[in-house]
């Protein structure tokens, strides 16, 4: 019973993230520079940090990126986003559970966005076999700071509602919300 509930929970979160992912593609966001996007799907991951355990989180990220690459992209897009996604997850998990005293949810989101970019650049560097790509990092970092803050604050609002509704245990989430 409990296992089925867990599975359903992950499945719903994957579905939510995918919807956000597809919706984001429909938004007419100006392409400031290649590789920059809002990353709305990260709202789900940020909330999931306080709901799922680490193993389940990894499952969430892998399944989400796999299915997202079915909706558009392909093998290479999957490689990029799964590396970025897992690295981002590692950083955010560590920050949320060990460094919550120091970081607000917006900052954790920014850190995750930076880690996501680093992971993608790493794969890009391996693909084109040049590490000169990393000169592009400052640009991506700045965009990560902006989009990460937007996404982080959105996740904070979502989390507040979930805590109020009793869907997320207040004890775990509260240390990050104050």
């Amino acid at each position, binding site marked *: 019973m409990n296992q089925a509930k867990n599975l359903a929970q992950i499945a719903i979160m994957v579905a939510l993230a995918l919807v956000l992912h597809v919706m984001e593609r429909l938004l007419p966001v100006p392409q400031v520079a290649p590789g920059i996007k809002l990353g709305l799907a990260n709202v789900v991951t940020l909330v999931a940090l306080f709901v799922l355990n680490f193993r389940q989180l990894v499952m969430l990220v892998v399944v989400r990126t796999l299915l997202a690459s079915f909706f558009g992209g392909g093998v290479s897009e999957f490689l990029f986003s799964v590396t970025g996604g897992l690295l981002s997850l590692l950083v955010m998990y560590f920050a949320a559970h060990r460094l919550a005293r120091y970081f607000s949810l917006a900052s954790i989101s920014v850190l995750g966005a930076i880690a996501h970019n680093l992971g993608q650049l790493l794969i890009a560097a391996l693909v084109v076999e040049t590490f000169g790509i990393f000169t592009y990092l400052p640009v991506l*970092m700045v965009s990560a700071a902006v989009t990460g803050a937007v996404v982080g604050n959105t996740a904070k609002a979502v989390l507040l509602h979930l805590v109020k509704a009793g869907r997320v245990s207040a004890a775990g989430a509260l240390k990050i919300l104050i």
Partner: protein
Amino acid sequence: MKLGDKVLLATMLIFAVAAVLWWLRPASSDLVAEIKLNGRVVKTIDLGRVQKPSEFTVQAGAGKYNVVRVERGRIRVVTANCPNQVDVKQGWISAPGQTIVCLPHRLVITLRGRSEPSVDDIVR
């Protein structure tokens, strides 16, 4: 704001400044001026890296001279004592492939670029 937030914000600001500097960095060695006398290269100048405008004189044999002015991304002959003054009248050149020729002094200034010229060819 918590402590880590402030640290992160400060780091991001530094990166923002770095990013702006990166965007504004001088176009490096994308445009090189080659000055030839009698078919021999006597001087090459990376126009992308010229910091401030300067002038110098090219001595083209007994009593023949051309004064060349260099600014970032462009070059011209300011004065010369050649009879027809074609090189002076031509003014600035700034695109890869463009050429200034002073036939009486056998002086040629050619611009080379790593990027392709925007036109197929230049006929003069």
